[in-house]
């Protein structure tokens, strides 16, 4: 308990930073992942190929390596200067989008073909069918796996701590510099994450109940 109370100035801001990182990356990956999923079901073969290549490459690359690239290698390219926090957001978004894309795509597959056919019969375009008929239903049916992906994102955000971002994963380092017990500090961090994951699981369950589609 002492380790937590003596270092509240660390735990508070660092966990807030984790939550901030999580929220920004979550919104980014949801948007980008959905766009990728739209590419992967589009009628234009080139778009489908682009989506497939992106997902295949990113899903088979370790997140740590994505981080290493954006933190160590990217600055050398001198395109746009980004700080460590932005680099972490970009890495997490690039990585998580590929998983969101696959979840959304599996959701699109659960929507009966008749829905799209009815849309076409009414003269809707592909974009309208996807945006107004299929995706809203698809997203509702994939809420549980979508939030599981976000839980993975939350846990993955700790890797940022290994790359000079002052978030929960980095607390241990600061504690050890202050000479406090690292084991206890890490246990507190673990507890913090258990609570955050529990909150997300709770959101998942309530959304699942409210949004489940009767078919």
């Amino acid at each position, binding site marked *: 308990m002492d380790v937590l109370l003596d270092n509240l100035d660390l735990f508070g801001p660092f966990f807030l930073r984790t939550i901030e990182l999580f929220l920004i990356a979550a919104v980014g990956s949801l948007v980008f992942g959905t766009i990728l999923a739209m590419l992967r*079901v589009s*009628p*234009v073969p*080139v*778009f489908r190929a682009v989506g497939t290549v992106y997902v*295949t*490459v990113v899903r*088979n*690359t*370790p*997140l*740590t*390596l994505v981080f*290493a*690239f954006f933190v*160590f*290698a990217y600055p*050398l*390219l*001198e*395109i746009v200067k980004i700080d460590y926090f932005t680099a972490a957001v970009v890495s997490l978004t690039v990585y*998580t989008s590929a*998983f969101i894309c696959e*979840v959304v795509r599996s959701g*699109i*597959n659960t*929507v009966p*073909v008749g829905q*799209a056919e009815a849309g*076409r019969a009414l003269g809707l375009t*592909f974009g309208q069918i*996807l945006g107004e008929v*299929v995706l809203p239903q698809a997203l509702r049916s994939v809420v*549980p*796996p979508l939030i*599981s*992906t976000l*839980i*993975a*994102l939350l*846990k*993955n955000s*700790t*890797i940022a701590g*290994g790359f000079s971002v002052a978030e929960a*994963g980095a607390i*241990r380092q600061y504690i*050890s510099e202050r000479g406090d*017990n*690292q*084991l206890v500090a*890490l*246990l507190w961090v*673990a507890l913090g*994450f*258990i609570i955050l*994951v*529990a909150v997300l*699981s709770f959101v998942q*369950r309530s959304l699942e109940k409210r949004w489940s589609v009767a078919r």
Partner: protein
Amino acid sequence: MTNVLFDVPGPKSRVRHRIYAVIGILVVVALIAFVVYSFAQSGQFTSQKWAWLEYSQVQSDLVNAIVATLEAFALGAVFALIFGAVFAAGRLSEHKWVRRISTFIVEFFRAIPLLILMFLFYFGLPTLGVDTSPLFAVVLGLTLYNGSVLAEVFRAGINSLPKGQSEAAYALGMRKTQVMFTVLLPQAIRAMLPTIISQLVVLLKDTALGFLVTYPELLYYARYIGSQGVFGRPIVPSTLVAAGIYIVLCLLLTALATWVEKRNRRSKKHIETTDNKAEQAMLGNAAGGGFVGGA
């Protein structure tokens, strides 16, 4: 795709799609050209930055790094499979306390970030006077986290088996442990093999976290080579090479999963499980942790 969201294009839409395709290709080519240009501009393609690949010392060190990665993967995979089987059986036990303890352990290790687990074993244990090594921390972390996920996979597999399997086994006079380990688990593992292998892909990727607890694996070596002034600090080339190696290794594992799945479908021993149920069970149970994710 079984699901078709669009009609077979007529002449007009074919023309339109072709225009979109051209625009799409132009955008992609422009992006790639921009990236290649910035690489070239900052001198990432100079021969000096790639020369390190030609040194035999570097090559053998690179092979050693890959071996270290595979070693962590192999140990982690074996222990995680054992851990998963034991705790899946535990969660299906008829004794309430066994079930409770197993559920607690599985949910506990799925909720903690893997990196924090590795930190706990690498930086935390020494404060208790326990000797650790990076390999120990990496393997133990991989085992506990992926083992917990695998336990859920096994459980979903066992739940998806037809009830007659265990009923027949009990009718033959088998004991509970016998039913579980000689009848149910082998079939569950067979049915879930593709899912199990994709979890092993996650495990393989997670070995890269070892970099952050100074385990000398592939990414660690890529970083080391990238910081060498002799080769002009080739961090971009070395990261690209490491990425290539990781992608090839993971794709090989994925190919294995696809092959196993096809072979499974042909096999006579294959019994029709209620696949849908297994999938739903997995989606529903994914609450505690990232089934789909991993680092």
